[in-house]
């Protein structure tokens, strides 16, 4: 066994410290060490995007990043979306517009969509499809996911202008 490293990660706003082997992937740290199982491990080959999390505000695939690399950095997962017991407008949009069927891809879709809306609050349909192009969904055909993100964009816009 390789030497372990002490890491400190801010996960959904809470400091989490652990002793990790270098080969521990971030997805396993999040699910198995921190016990936050909202993030899904899908293909495990950097293809599907189910494991997408925000690393210092940018979406990455947590199956292709070592936990030790996240030392000192900030991670946001789907668990971090709810604020004060209220669903995030994106979560509400996915619910309202039927942006999921089996739901497996949803945590990753939400995180990629969040990153998109933070960068571009009024995306076109093409911008949305580009923003989620690293996330696969085998149920919806994407149409309702696009609608869900549009729903959230409109809702967040209202929130800003209200």
């Amino acid at each position, binding site marked *: 066994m*390789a030497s372990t490293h002490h890491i400190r990660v801010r996960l959904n706003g809470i400091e989490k410290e652990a002793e990790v082997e*270098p080969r521990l992937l971030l997805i396993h740290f999040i699910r198995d060490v921190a016990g936050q199982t909202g993030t899904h491990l899908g293909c495990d*080959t950097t293809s599907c995007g189910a494991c997408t999390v925000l690393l210092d505000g940018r979406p990455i695939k947590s199956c292709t990043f070592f936990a030790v690399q996240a030392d000192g950095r900030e991670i946001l997962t789907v668990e971090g979306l709810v604020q004060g017991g209220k669903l995030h407008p994106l979560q509400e949009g996915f619910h309202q517009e039927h942006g999921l069927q089996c739901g497996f891809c949803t945590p990753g879709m939400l995180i990629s969509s969040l990153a998109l809306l933070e960068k571009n609050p009024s995306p076109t349909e093409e911008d949305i499809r580009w923003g989620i192009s690293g996330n696969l969904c085998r149920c919806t055909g994407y149409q309702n996911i696009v609608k869900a993100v549009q729903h959230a964009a409109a809702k967040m816009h209202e929130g800003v202008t209200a």
Partner: protein
Amino acid sequence: MIPPVFEYLRPATIPEAVSLLQLHGEDAKILSGGQSLIPMMKLRLARPAWLIDINHIPDLAYIREDGRYLKIGGLTREADVEGSDLVRSKYPIIHDTARVIADPQVRNLATIGGNLAHGDPANDHGATMLALEAEVIATGVNGERSIPVQDFFVSIFTTALEHDEILTEIRVPVPAARSGGAYFKLERKVGDFATAAVAAQVTLDSGDSCTKAGIGLTNVGPTPIRAGKAEAFLRGKKLDAQTIAEAARLAMDESQPSADLRGPAEYKKGLVKELTRRALTRAVERASR
């Protein structure tokens, strides 16, 4: 999939990283974006005993013009290349290239230095840097040396980098007035490697004749390929549709694709011809603006 056991090292400076490479020899690998290396480790295609993480070395990620060159730090993320206004406005061929690499999440980690140093003929920047006559800066124990991209790709997954050198910078000559370029890629889906892709860069004189042309081909041979015959054919000519079509045919002849899941060799040759035609046509449009 869990990669095999390795030791993780986090140098704070380039000299420290180079000395770690010297100490551990061929058993060590540089961890940059990790978006090719980590999947290969998971599949046991790579089994480094030591990973040297250069992500904490300061001043390795930048995009700036400096006299004669556009200089891009080796650790610059593809997303930052894609998002750079300087790159978009003055080097659209590099913008075209960065935005079709893998997918948004991968581009947030993947680096331009890693893309080149990995030596995968399917990686996209190689062809573009050939078309631009770029140089890479390799930093080793004796300091920096410059390697023309033309001499950088040796064979599949093999570059001119020594095992104790790190690719620290890419230098692209600032293009002359009336220059333009474009990168066209056909991929089966977002995130796939190119079935084929073509980079083309041209410079025109005041009479619209071509004074310089660069053409690079992606994933149609053991390395990125420079289509030198097509380039030579274009020089001194006006780049009308017929001339471009002939250059595209020459570039096709210079490609060496093999059949795989993405299609038979003949299909890929046809693609090289069509993508060269499109890339040259767009390059001329951009040079004429």
